[in-house]
């Protein structure tokens, strides 16, 4: 282990503190406190203390009382009591109440201390891992809830629309009317399809491992460009790409493409239709192992009050175009995976620009 385990030892006898520190300081990071106030300030200054040793017999407060006091405010450090045999009652009590992890007999043997520390450290690591896992689980659970909620709207919604359309088809005789309906049905199905693709992206991002390779942004954008040529031509939106890359950049191509695809499709989708000069500009600059990407559009912009929420799952700030509410959330997840950052700037009716920085891996 690169970093030494941080241990706090509390005892009213300075000689004990010195002895403890002398025998253990090579292998561990030892902090000492000669009274409770000192111990408290030590705990607040060093949130990474993993193990606390405390003497049972101290004036004013006993070790057991001290441990009981800090149990809720500092739940993480593993608590070990140092005491002589005579205190057996209080030890049993303290162990049963869960206030201490173990005790070490005084005077101590160095090997007892070391084995106590190693056990306590394992216990600490397991506990912290559990906390992290719990957090992850909670997050996954919240997303599942959101997902279940969106199913009724984003999957069931288009389906009930199609069903409704089939239902009225029996009463439609006019071929033009029928064509109009088919067009709307198609649009609905495309939305459903886009939703399912984004959902797939979402899971790929959550689960997959990174597959690192050399990235040429020029090739990558050349590959993506044809996807937007139709939109660019039919809606009269200029599509400009400029790439400056003289060095090797290593990253995972899949999340990178996902970032570009989501931001580009938004940039084309949310154009201001009344505007004459419409454009989407992409610039990529790779310097000192960092790629800086700007994606700028002349679109309708995002309302200031919505900016903070656009990266949230299922958030939609606009009804002009179909959207799943997955897009920018997936962009954020992809960037998290690649250690990247994203900034957004938007002015209503003028456009939105995203700045992304991604380090080479």
């Amino acid at each position, binding site marked *: 282990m690169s970093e030494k385990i941080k241990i706090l030892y509390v005892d009213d006898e300075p000689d004990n503190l010195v002895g403890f520190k002398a025998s253990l300081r090579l292998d561990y990071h030892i902090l000492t406190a000669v009274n409770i106030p000192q111990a408290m300030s030590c705990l607040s200054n060093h949130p990474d203390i993993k193990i606390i040793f405390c003497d049972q017999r101290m004036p004013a407060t006993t070790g057991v009382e001290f441990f009981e006091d800090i149990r809720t405010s500092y739940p993480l450090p593993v608590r070990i009591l140092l005491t002589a045999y005579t205190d057996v009652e209080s030890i049993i009590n303290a162990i049963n109440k869960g206030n201490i992890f173990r005790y070490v007999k005084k005077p101590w043997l160095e090997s007892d201390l070391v084995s106590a520390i190693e056990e306590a450290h394992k216990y600490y690591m397991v506990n912290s891992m559990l906390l992290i896992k719990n957090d992850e689980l909670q997050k996954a659970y919240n997303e599942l809830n959101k997902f279940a909620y969106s199913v*009724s709207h984003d999957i069931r919604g*288009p389906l009930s629309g199609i069903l*409704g359309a089939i*239902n009225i088809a029996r009463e439609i005789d006019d071929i033009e009317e029928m064509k109009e309906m088919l067009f709307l049905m198609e*649009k609905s199905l495309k939305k459903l399809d886009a939703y399912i693709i984004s959902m797939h992206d979402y899971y790929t991002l959550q689960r997959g491992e990174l597959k690192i390779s050399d990235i040429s942004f020029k090739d990558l954008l050349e590959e993506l460009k044809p996807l937007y040529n139709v939109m660019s031509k039919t809606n009269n939106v200029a599509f400009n790409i400029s790439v400056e890359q003289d060095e090797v950049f290593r990253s995972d191509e899949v999340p990178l493409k996902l970032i570009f695809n989501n931001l580009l499709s938004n940039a084309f989708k949310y154009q201001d239709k009344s505007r004459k000069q419409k454009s989407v500009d992409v610039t990529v600059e790779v310097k000192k192992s960092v790629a800086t990407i700007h994606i700028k559009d002349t679109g309708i912009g995002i309302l200031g009050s919505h900016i903070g929420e656009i990266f949230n799952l299922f958030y939609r700030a606009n009804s002009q175009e179909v*959207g799943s509410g997955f897009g920018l959330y997936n962009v954020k997840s992809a960037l998290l995976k690649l250690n990247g950052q994203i900034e957004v700037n938007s002015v209503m009716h003028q456009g939105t620009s995203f700045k992304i920085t991604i380090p080479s891996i």
Partner: protein
Amino acid sequence: MALSFIVIDDSELDCFIARKIVGHADKGLTVKTFQRGNEALDMIRKNMADYAEADMTIILLDLQMPIMNGFEFVEEFEKFAPEARKKFRIVILSSTRNSNDIFRIFTYNTVHSLMEKPLTREKLLSLMQQVGAIRVD
């Protein structure tokens, strides 16, 4: 009594269906569709004086919409004066199965009922009976 409809749904297809269903049920019925709740509110506000005492407007309202969802629409709608509100019946038309949503719908006094999508001729006719717009013979 003249009956008319306002449909608020961000899905174009659902708006189309509502127009057709209502149109086929009775050619004399008028339907206005909106993909955004705030536009419907603006229209209602502007034309409030034109809604006659005896007329009734059924608002078919979707729940999950961007910018202004169905709940927000109802909350804005409830700010109208009671005499003005009397001329409208809000019917939630949604595909939601979420119990929180369904519970919340009925916490609003101005919501008449909940109808599950898709809208069909049968559902529409039974709704019109319920609000007394057509007689059952």
